[in-house]
């Protein structure tokens, strides 16, 4: 990005260059194992059509849960030095990711691996990044969990809390200016609320009313002063509080929020996560969320003829997810580390004399 942008008369700006599109996933030869755009697996029967959105949510959660588990295993065994599980935030993150449309932009937090998956990221690419190998598009520069998704309008997470909030609002304002009817999503945790980025983002959102969903995942309101709903109101920004432990409710709320921000500008969606002190392990949140979608799906087909079909479908998803994640992790572990030269690339559009000279130091 950045180069070769051409101006369209109205609407979003054309992306030139070599970006893959979401609906044209990279020909990496492993499409069958990828969680790609429509998240269908080959066995998908048409009869479950109306359930597909929930099934996609289920699948995203299933993969995210397995990624979390695998990463905790890798961490225990010392392969991964750093990992922050999606955990209880998987439900929120998957729901948001399943809601966003292709032209939408996402500014995720470091817990949003489920959003990465729902946005079209493949588990294999995800593990390439987690293990910071040579296939990582960002050359292993980022801490594990801060993903890049080429072509995915999923902005690589920064280590500084809250900085993504005014950035997202800027992208939303740009959409307004360009007559782009997409929306921008920004996700953050409770700690970012005290940071200036939150304040700046809310001020800008109140002034320009861009199509931005600001989603704050909070666990038991820990660390928050006062009322987040009250604060949003104080800025003149609409807010809504949702049970972040209920992925189905989240999915619905995200869909409505998407409409709301397109109609009337930015809003703050407050996702209440289960109190971490109440759940046995951080990662239980991920499991509980996937189960919740399962239950909902089962209720929708209960006693009917689709029940066995569904059950078969979900089982297939789980088993594919297990295989995919295992394979992705194994494959990533075998890949070579990033080339030394990458340490001095991607600084400027063209390397300056400093980077050129210093490439000698890498030898």
């Amino acid at each position, binding site marked *: 990005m950045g180069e070769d942008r051409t101006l369209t008369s109205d609407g979003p700006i054309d992306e030139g260059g070599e970006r893959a599109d979401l609906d044209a996933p990279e020909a990496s030869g492993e499409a069958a194992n990828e969680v790609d755009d429509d998240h269908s697996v080959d066995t998908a029967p048409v009869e479950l059509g109306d359930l597909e959105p929930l099934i996609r949510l289920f699948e995203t959660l299933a993969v995210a849960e397995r990624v979390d588990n695998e990463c905790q295993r890798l961490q225990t065994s010392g392969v991964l030095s750093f990992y922050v599980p999606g955990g209880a935030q998987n439900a929120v993150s998957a729901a948001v990711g399943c809601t966003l449309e292709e032209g939408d932009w996402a500014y995720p937090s470091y817990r949003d691996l489920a959003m990465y998956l729902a946005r079209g990221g493949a588990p294999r690419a995800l593990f390439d990044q987690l293990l910071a190998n040579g296939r990582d598009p960002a050359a292993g520069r980022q801490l594990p969990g801060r993903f890049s998704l080429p072509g995915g309008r999923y902005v690589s997470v920064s280590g500084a809390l809250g900085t993504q909030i005014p950035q997202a609002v*800027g*992208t939303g304002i740009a959409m307004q200016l360009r007559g782009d009817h997409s929306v921008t999503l920004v996700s953050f945790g409770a700690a970012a609320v005290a940071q200036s980025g939150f304040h700046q983002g809310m001020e800008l959102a109140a002034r320009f009313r861009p199509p931005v969903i600001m989603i704050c995942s909070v666990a038991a309101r820990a660390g928050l002063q006062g009322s987040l709903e009250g604060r949003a109101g104080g800025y003149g920004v609409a807010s809504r509080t949702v049970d972040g432990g209920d992925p189905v409710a989240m999915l619905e709320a995200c869909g409505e929020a998407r409409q709301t921000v397109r109609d009337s500008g930015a809003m703050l969606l407050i996702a209440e996560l289960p109190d971490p002190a109440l759940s046995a392990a951080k990662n239980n949140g991920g499991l509980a969320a996937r189960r919740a979608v399962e239950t909902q799906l089962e209720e929708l087909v209960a006693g009917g003829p689709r029940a066995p079909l569904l059950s078969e479908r979900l089982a297939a998803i789980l088993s594919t997810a297990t295989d995919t994640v295992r394979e992705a992790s194994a494959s990533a572990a075998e890949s070579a580390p990033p080339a030394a030269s990458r340490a001095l690339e991607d600084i400027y559009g063209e390397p300056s004399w400093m980077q050129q000279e210093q490439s000698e130091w890498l030898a």
Partner: protein
Amino acid sequence: MASLNLVEAVNYALGAEMESNPLVVLLGEEVSESGGLHGAAEGLLDRFGGERVLEVPFAEGGLLGAAAGMAMYGLRPVAELPFAECLFPGLEQLSVEIARLRFRSGGEYTCPLVVRVPYGAGIGGGLDQFESPEAYLTHSPGLVVVAPSNAYDAVGLLRSALRGDDPVAFLEPRRLYRHESMEIPETDYEVPIGEAKVLRECDEGVSLITYGGMVPVSLDAAELAAEAGHEVEVVELRTLLPFDIGTVLASVVKTGRALVVTESRKHGGFGAELVATLAERALLHLEAPVERVAGLDAPIPYAREELYVPDSSRVLAAIERLVSF
């Protein structure tokens, strides 16, 4: 075209780029009232409307964050700061986010934006508004830092900045805003990033390296030195990061004497980088120690500002020390 001074040149170049490229937008504080604190945005709101000229809340981190989000999306934002110290609330966005985004994302996202920074002493700005902030910017690979000293270069550098691939900090010496007017060509010329300009040549004598607000002071001192029989070659950097190392080295290798003139506080300033580069790469050519003429290691006072900021007599004295070494 009419003759323009530096701030008029910035205004002109902004208007012209906004005219020719609908992706260029301007963000700033109080840009609707009287075109911002210094009038550089005058008339732009009327010409381009509130969608292209955005008045933002008084928060420079938000200003730069929003500009970054616009640049990532594909716009070409120009963010105007009221004065140099307003960089501080925005420095996390500039240093950690904007400068590193291309690297962080493996080249996937870029932030080609321009941050305009009115800076520098000599205008009675008081101790906490118009410092020389370049040291806080030139330690950030990924950023481009430019500092024009005249209307011609301001137009050409702003064009290059708005057409390049990288985020650019555009330092505008506040003391030169209305210093001198000059004819600006009608042509769509650019001043390339990374190219210094030799303002005054000589074969032997002293190489004086400077930029921004210190250019007229340095030229005055060079003139006084010439009258006293000492030749001075004046190299104006124009781009600070990445600076034109070829031109700087060539000059010093030729003359064997180097003087770096900056307005910023001496210790830890950008001048140190220039001197260090010479000590590393031109040592055998040096016939005298390299000197820095710089601001005091103190904040800039409102009263008696002239004590803080280098003037031509301090520069001249250094030239004399170097030639008589």
